[in-house]
């Protein structure tokens, strides 16, 4: 046993499952609403389920479905979804050194990385725990795909999505996810002066600066979208709003 080990017992897959259980229930309910809304967006029953299994990323799936529903076209839908999922690039880099096994196993394990499983799996010094990631990711995947199937199949029981206010669920959902993005990251506990080496590990002061710059990016994105909505087709304002992320490239 290593002296540097903090917990007496290293976390296992079951610990990941247990930690993700409350949020897994939300993922199931969220999956049901995606299934219902995707069905009402004209995606049929099977496509939403296949999408939940392969894409496994809520905001991108909702974005793609809502852009298709709004007549934004598939190129716009794919571009918006891919832009939303680009965050998995740096998240994947941060998780890279914690994954084990041959290349195909590491690539497969990385598929279980979603915002929630990645957050649950955070350990000190910017590392993630592979067992927590897999346990939490699998539970969230089961909840998300199962919920999508239930929603997509039961979708035809729903009379009119607008009369049930389901179109208002889209902006409310994105607002809730945005609030999560802007909230303080409680997982970033470790103090470190080597921020350039480990970007996920920052001091409290730097963390506050990052929270403020995330807020600036959100305001910038909203303003760009508002400015372009009267003149550009559906989906284009969303893609253009990604330019606001350059706020994060300032010297920090």
């Amino acid at each position, binding site marked *: 046993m290593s002296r540097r080990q903090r917990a007496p017992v290293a976390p296992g897959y079951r610990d990941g499952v247990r930690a993700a259980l409350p949020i897994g229930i*939300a993922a199931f309910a*969220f999956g049901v*609403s995606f299934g219902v809304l995707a069905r009402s967006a004209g995606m049929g029953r099977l496509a939403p389920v*296949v*999408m939940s299994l*392969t*894409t*496994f990323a809520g905001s991108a*799936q*909702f974005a793609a479905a809502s852009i298709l529903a709004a*007549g934004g076209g*598939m190129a716009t*839908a*794919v571009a918006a*979804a891919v832009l939303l*999922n*680009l*965050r998995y*690039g*740096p998240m994947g880099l941060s998780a890279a050194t914690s994954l084990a096994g041959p290349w195909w196993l590491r*690539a497969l394990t990385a598929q279980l*990385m979603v915002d929630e499983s990645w957050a649950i799996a955070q350990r000190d010094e910017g590392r993630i725990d592979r067992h927590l990631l897999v346990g939490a990711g699998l539970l969230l995947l089961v909840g998300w795909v199962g919920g999508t199937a239930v929603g997509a199949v039961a979708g035809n029981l729903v009379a009119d999505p607008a*009369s*049930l*206010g389901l*179109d*208002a*669920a889209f*902006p*409310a*959902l*994105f607002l*809730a*996810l*945005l*609030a999560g*993005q802007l909230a303080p990251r409680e997982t970033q506990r470790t103090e470190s002066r080597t*921020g*350039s080496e480990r*970007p996920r590990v920052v001091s409290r002061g730097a963390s506050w600066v*990052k929270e403020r*710059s*995330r807020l600036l*990016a959100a305001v*910038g*994105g*909203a303003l760009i979208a*508002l400015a372009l*909505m*009267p003149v*550009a087709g559906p989906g284009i*304002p*969303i893609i253009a709003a*990604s*330019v*606001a*992320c*350059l*706020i994060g*490239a300032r010297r920090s």
Partner: protein
Amino acid sequence: MTAVWITVVAVGLATMAIKAAGTLLLGGRTLPPRAQSALEHLAPALLAALVVTQALGGSGGGFAIDARLAGLAAATVALLLRAPLLLVITVAAATAAAVRAFA
């Protein structure tokens, strides 16, 4: 239907590639801090744009002010009261549905 499946396959393949890229490509190197920081800001920028377009966007472009805005206002209150995601969405939908039913 075809456009839906092309979208599902394209988004799925792209997302799987993005998720796997980090562990497959990292050769002891890290991104420049500025590039990393910019990518971290992509999600809030895009989510904010989605809130705006989904709450105010008309079908086919432009603005449309309707019950969605009341739903979003109710969702904001629920978020400020630290309601869980499911409740936030339910409150938004119920408020929009109520406005449509009684307006």
